[in-house]
């Protein structure tokens, strides 16, 4: 339980920081933090407790973020993607990308066929996992915006101040 709370806390902080790079206003940043906490902890629970593969877990978590962002959009008077996109950033699988690059460098500098095959396998496995996880996350977060078009594109209605 404590580890889930810790996961939520740190992913919220990560989302706040990455959202500030994209100049998200403070009124939207708290929703970023909330969505990131929910999404990342959901992925953590799915992978840890239910042994779900990272690809499926990340897609489900991203879909949850995407769906939750839709009703929050009109509430915050912001387009849903302004807080769902930064909320996704803590879930990007950096380690798989590094191992893929490591595999690429090692297989190019290997001398025997066996070593090459081994590193080539590592590069492909990690590279493909990384690419498909990111693709799954992008699909998961973007699909709700297109499904709930009317709400997504009228979120900023009535929110302008002089």
């Amino acid at each position, binding site marked *: 339980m404590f580890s889930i709370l810790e996961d939520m806390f740190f*992913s919220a902080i*990560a989302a706040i920081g990455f959202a500030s790079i994209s100049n998200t206003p403070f009124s*939207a940043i708290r929703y970023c933090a909330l969505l990131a906490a929910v999404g990342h902890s959901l992925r953590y629970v799915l992978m840890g407790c239910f042994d779900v593969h990272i690809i499926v877990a990340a897609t489900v978590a991203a879909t949850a973020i995407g769906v939750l962002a839709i009703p929050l959009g009109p509430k915050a008077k912001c*387009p849903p*993607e*302004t807080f769902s996109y930064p909320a996704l950033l803590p879930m990007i699988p950096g380690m798989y990308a590094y191992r893929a690059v490591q595999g690429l460098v090692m297989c190019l500098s290997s001398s025997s066929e066996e070593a090459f095959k081994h590193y080539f396998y590592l590069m492909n496995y990690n590279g493909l996992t990384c690419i498909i996880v990111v693709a799954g996350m992008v699909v998961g977060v973007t*699909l709700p915006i297109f499904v709930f078009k009317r709400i997504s594109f009228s979120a900023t209605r009535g929110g*302008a101040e002089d």
Partner: protein
Amino acid sequence: MTTMTKNVDCCSQSDTHDQLKEKCRFLANYAAELLGCGATCIRIEKNVRRMAQTFGVNVEMTLLPSHVIVVVWDADYTHSYNCQAKPVGEAINFQRNIELSKLSWRVVEERLSCSRAVELYGKVLSLPRLNKWLVLLLTSLANASFCRLFGGDFYAVGVVFCATLLGFLVKQIMLEDKIDLRITTVASAFVASVVGASGHLFGISDTPELALGTSVLFLIPGIPYINAGSDLFAGHYLCSFSRFMQAVLLTICLSLGLCGGMFLMQMKFF
């Protein structure tokens, strides 16, 4: 009589031309600004069409990766004006995205004239970004949290905090000096990875490889990847591909900087 009618016709044609020109220029610059601040193509289209409908004109838009071409026709398709605009800035700016979207709804709900819309548009453009020191601190905290999420111990988190602080500061300074973003990314990744390698070098952490690995993650262009996905769904394949390639290029630059730092510090890959 005939001469007077001719004069009246000329005046009204010139008025129509001026009005169309004003609306076209505004819509083109609005669309270009939204494109530059990282909005998805479908949002740009919907916002522009919404405002064009309120202004009583018909609009056709072509969204290209670095340009926007807008053609505005009057209500009965007898006169048109077209305009091309190029985004000025390329940094993602969600606040501007939000305010411009709000502006488009305001135009519809309050039935604003084009000149009033231009005035409000100017006000949105003059809104300042978040304080750069606050962004520096928040980003460093974010990347440090990232390290913790990957399972790093608290010493590794501290190393990553310092690495991000210095790396992001280098990035901010280089971007202020208008140095190309790709070179900036390489340099920033190099600095961050050299600091990140201090976990290995000074033996201050139990998970030094995580510190090294996460020290450059603040440079990953996550939003362009997601925007590329959204543009793909909406059928804007050119913009999608362009954004995707830009993000891939930045990722490659990041990797180059990381490899450079690891090579200099003679770190073996983990």
